């Protein structure tokens, strides 16, 4: 089998539509993961022991079950309980919430790494709990978490391929459909790999830019 350029031109629009869908899924999941993770970490830090244990339990549950199992549960089992959601919504919610659990661990580590002296300074200045968290602890924790969070977004972006399993037309799904229709799999999957790899680069660039811009801020 040889590489077929006319076929590449023919399937490219569908693959690019898949890239857009993948991008949307990744952004939506990242918003849930990064925002939800922060909420989980802050609640875990502020809540007493029962609250901390509850958050810990949720995090362990989400990290301990394979993504596909949760996806199938959300898409196939929930309707039998009377809750029917679109494949896109289920996929984004499942990936977002699972990665929120991972991100919460990143934030938790970052919060723990903030020196005790910073807490003392906040108390000595008389800052309220809200101001302490909003202006000092959360910004510091987020800055310290950025490299790890970007890595998780990259993983999310690759793992968005799982959503193919419930019919979300992400890039992998488009490649599969193209292949099944023509029985040519070389071009769709090669291009899919190249596109996934290429789309990684903006994230890597953003990470380097963040590190360069904040190099003088020793957080």
């Amino acid at each position, binding site marked *: 089998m040889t590489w077929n350029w006319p076929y590449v031109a023919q399937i490219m629009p569908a693959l690019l539509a898949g890239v857009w869908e993948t991008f949307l899924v990744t952004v939506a999941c990242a918003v849930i993961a990064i925002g939800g993770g922060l909420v989980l970490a802050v609640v875990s830090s502020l809540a007493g022991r029962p609250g901390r244990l509850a958050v810990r339990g949720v995090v362990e549950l989400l990290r301990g079950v394979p993504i596909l199992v949760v996806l199938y549960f959300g898409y196939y089992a929930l309707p039998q309980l009377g809750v029917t959601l679109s494949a896109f919504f289920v996929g984004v919610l499942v990936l977002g919430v699972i990665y929120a659990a991972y991100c919460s661990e990143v934030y938790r580590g970052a919060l723990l790494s903030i020196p005790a*002296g910073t807490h*003392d300074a906040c*108390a000595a200045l008389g800052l309220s709990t809200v101001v302490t968290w909003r202006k000092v602890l959360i910004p510091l924790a987020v800055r310290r978490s950025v490299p790890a969070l970007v890595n998780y977004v990259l993983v999310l972006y690759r793992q968005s391929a799982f959503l193919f399993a419930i019919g979300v037309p992400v890039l992998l799904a488009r490649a599969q459909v193209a292949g099944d229709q023509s029985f040519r799999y070389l071009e769709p999957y090669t291009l899919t790999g190249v596109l996934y790899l290429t789309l990684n680069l903006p994230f890597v660039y953003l990470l380097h830019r963040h590190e360069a811009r904040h190099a003088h801020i020793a957080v």
Partner: protein
Amino acid sequence: MPTSPSSGISAVAAIQFANVSKSFGANSVLTGLDLSVAAGERLTLIGPSGSGKTTVLRLAMMLDRPTAGDIRLFGESIVKGPGGKPRRAREAARLRRRCGMVFQQFNLFPHMTVLQNLTLAPRTVLRLSAEESEQRALDHLRMVGLEDKRTAYPGQLSGGQQQRIAIARTLALRPDILLLDEITSSLDPELVGEVLEVVRRIAQETDITFLIVTHEMRFARQVSDRVAMFDSGRIIEEGSPELIFSEPRCERTKSFLRSVLDH
């Protein structure tokens, strides 16, 4: 400058420790401490590391709670409220506002510019307007000689500059009492002078009450009205700087001063 006895009630005491003890688990740091600092007085605590000096400052700043005893700021207990119940958080915060503390490690907020470090508390605690808090911040930056660093981040400054910013940040809240916890211990020797000079100037130009913990004996001698020697969680000797540094009575004070001054 008024001096006050180390125990007993004083009507004008800015800070008063009455039979205060503090333990961390089985480790007893302070035992039955009686200490009084008159309003406007400058008291320096000296003594070996681990003798409980920093704990005194942390208790006065309410960063730690005493295991027993009472602490009063200008006559009001920061430990007990009316009826002997523990102080409510809001009341404690109001009392704490009269104290400011400068730390050994500066503890500036690294993600904020110098100006943001100085305006955060005046804006959110004192509820000053943006203009007022900025003006106040600039006044204090001028006082510590760092007005031109307002847009810098702490990581771009030397240790001495960071400590001067930390002093300005504390002063921006206009405290009645300034607690200085070994503020030169983290600095390179050549940066110590600039920080101490700033403190000397503040001591001369204001009537703030100072409670200082330091290992800089020359500075302690110059700036203090009274010096107290700490050992094993209690004061073993106190008096005027001349008395403590020239004619110490206790053997422990003599040996401590010898070891510090020989360095």
